[in-house]
């Protein structure tokens, strides 16, 4: 069997709070092949954001195993994790999270600063990506001079600039109207068609329909794992547990 891009086994995550330990993730098992497009759904507090943070190497699990491309993440130090976030994973956030002082070109080129790419190459690559997401005319504008949908396109261009294998999108359409949401989802589908793996967190089921697989979280567990197009792969995780 081919190696999974993402392999998570028996993942637990506890948070220490003033009121005692809270378990956010319990016995989560998940695997994903390269090229897949997964939507993660679930109500607030179901643990999906924590799960995304762990997959994005921003957070560490309390126990359990997580391997990216077959490499266990637990063994890596801070700098190695930063390198993975820089080169293997691209983040897209609900609030876009662009640097307000920097031009669109500088925003998109920012990850390349941390991988030591020369200035001329940084600008060239950022420009190509801004053109690809349809914002080639605005490269010197500031983020507050363009619309929310356009800002999210810039954020996607930034996520793509280091040619990652995996894009993690945390409610990327949460702040957008339905027409703009459709445009952003079409962009994700196009990227997935080019072979980039995508994991997307969303509340909305019509957004989740764009993915080829839907995973539902509830109270820190995966309760449903569905493939939308090939019906024979459907498993009712809730039944199995």
């Amino acid at each position, binding site marked *: 069997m081919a190696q999974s891009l993402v392999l998570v086994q028996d993942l637990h995550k506890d948070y220490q709070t003033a009121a005692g330990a809270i378990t956010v993730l319990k016995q989560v098992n998940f695997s994903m092949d390269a090229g897949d497009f997964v939507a993660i759904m679930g109500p607030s507090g179901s643990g999906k954001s924590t799960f995304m943070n762990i997959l994005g190497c*921003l957070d560490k699990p309390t126990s359990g195993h997580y391997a990216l491309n077959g490499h266990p993440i637990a063994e890596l130090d*801070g700098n190695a994790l930063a390198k993975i976030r820089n080169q293997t994973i691209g983040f897209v956030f609900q609030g876009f999270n662009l640097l307000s002082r920097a031009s669109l070109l500088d925003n998109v080129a920012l990850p390349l600063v941390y991988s030591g790419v020369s200035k001329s190459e940084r600008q060239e690559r950022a420009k190509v990506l801004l053109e690809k997401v349809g914002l080639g005319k605005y490269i010197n504008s500031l983020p507050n001079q363009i619309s929310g949908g356009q800002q999210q396109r810039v954020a996607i261009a930034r996520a793509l600039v280091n040619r990652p294998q995996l894009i993690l999108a945390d409610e990327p359409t949460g702040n957008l109207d339905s027409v703009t949401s459709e445009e952003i989802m079409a962009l994700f589908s196009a990227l997935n068609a080019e072979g980039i793996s995508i994991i997307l967190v969303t509340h909305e089921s019509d957004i989740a329909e764009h993915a080829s697989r839907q995973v539902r979280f509830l109270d820190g567990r995966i309760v449903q794992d569905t493939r939308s197009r090939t019906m024979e792969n459907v498993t009712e995780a809730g039944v199995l547990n």
Partner: protein
Amino acid sequence: MFSAMLGEAWQAMGANRLRTFLTMLGMVIGVGSVVLMMAVGQGAEESVKQSINAMGSNLFIVLSGSSTSGGARSGSGNASTLTVNDANAIGELDGVGNVAPISMGNAQVVFGGNNWSTSIMGTTATYLDIRAWDLDDGYVFSDSDMRSATRVALIGKTVVENIFGDINPIGKTIRIKQNPFVVLGVLKDKGQSLDGRDQDDTIIIPLTTAQRKILGNQFAGSVRQIMVQAVSPEAMTMVEQNINGLLKQRHNIREGADNDFNVRNLTAVANSAAETTRTMSLLLGAIASVSLLVGGIGIMNIMLVSVTERTREIGIRMAIGAREGDILLQFLLEAIVISVIGCLIGLFIGITGAMLVNKLTQAAVVISGYSVMIAFAVAASVGIFFGFYPARKAARMNPIEALRYQ
């Protein structure tokens, strides 16, 4: 990557110009005052050094002792106990170079319609050698002038200004206490002595002339003081002992009795004056350094605010691959850029201020490359030192919490 970070530091500083400017102002004032204080302090040291050099090196002055009349004791220099013969005998001692006996007093000097009261110094030509005092114009009186007590005079710059104005004094005849004197030469500008006396307000005439014609009523051969120059700094202790021994013998002073003369080491006095100014300039520098420290604390304060304000930005940068070191470097660089630019402006203001002080008060200032370098190095280290804690705070942030920060 470094240049990209410098660019970002510049951008971040530009984002809040007033705050950046105020932060910088702390550095500007700190560095400016250090440079100014050091310039003034070193200037003072330098002028003291010049006074010492102008005074002459390895000098003793032998003063006649006090006299007692009717139970009242006068100050030293008033008894007529020292003689030209004493001076000649001192000249024979080992380690003694030049010796100049001096008689002096004040007198009114007249030329044309102008008159001026000045000090009249009767001495030998060696006095000018000891004081390393040259002539601006004319020539010094000769041995034969000495022997025949000729009425000739060398006059100081202040006297020239006051009675001659623009007239060339050489060869002109002036009157000192009604006696006509021919001006042989004009003394070079000597400036103030260590105690602030104007050394150019003087007239030098041959000792014999002074004793016989001007400072009359002393008995022949007596002098006020004898200036003695040792051949080297090392010989000074020995020379002092020898002068004391010789004069005790010549003046028949018994063991245990008071001396009727005083030997003073002028060089030691001068050195202590130099020491005083050095201490003063150190003190000025120390006070100014405090303002540099305060400026550094200002930088730290603003960097802490900046780190908190930009928490979300830090989270974003971490999410897209910034290492701890990258974040640390970014904020550190910002602190350093602020302090270095502040330092450059401070240098400019400090140097301009020092020149202004020089212009307005005529006080000597010295701007040395050394003090500029020190100020610069200190400013850079202040930036690093006070920028490090906020930068480390930024670098140690938890990316998830930073991203959630509103």
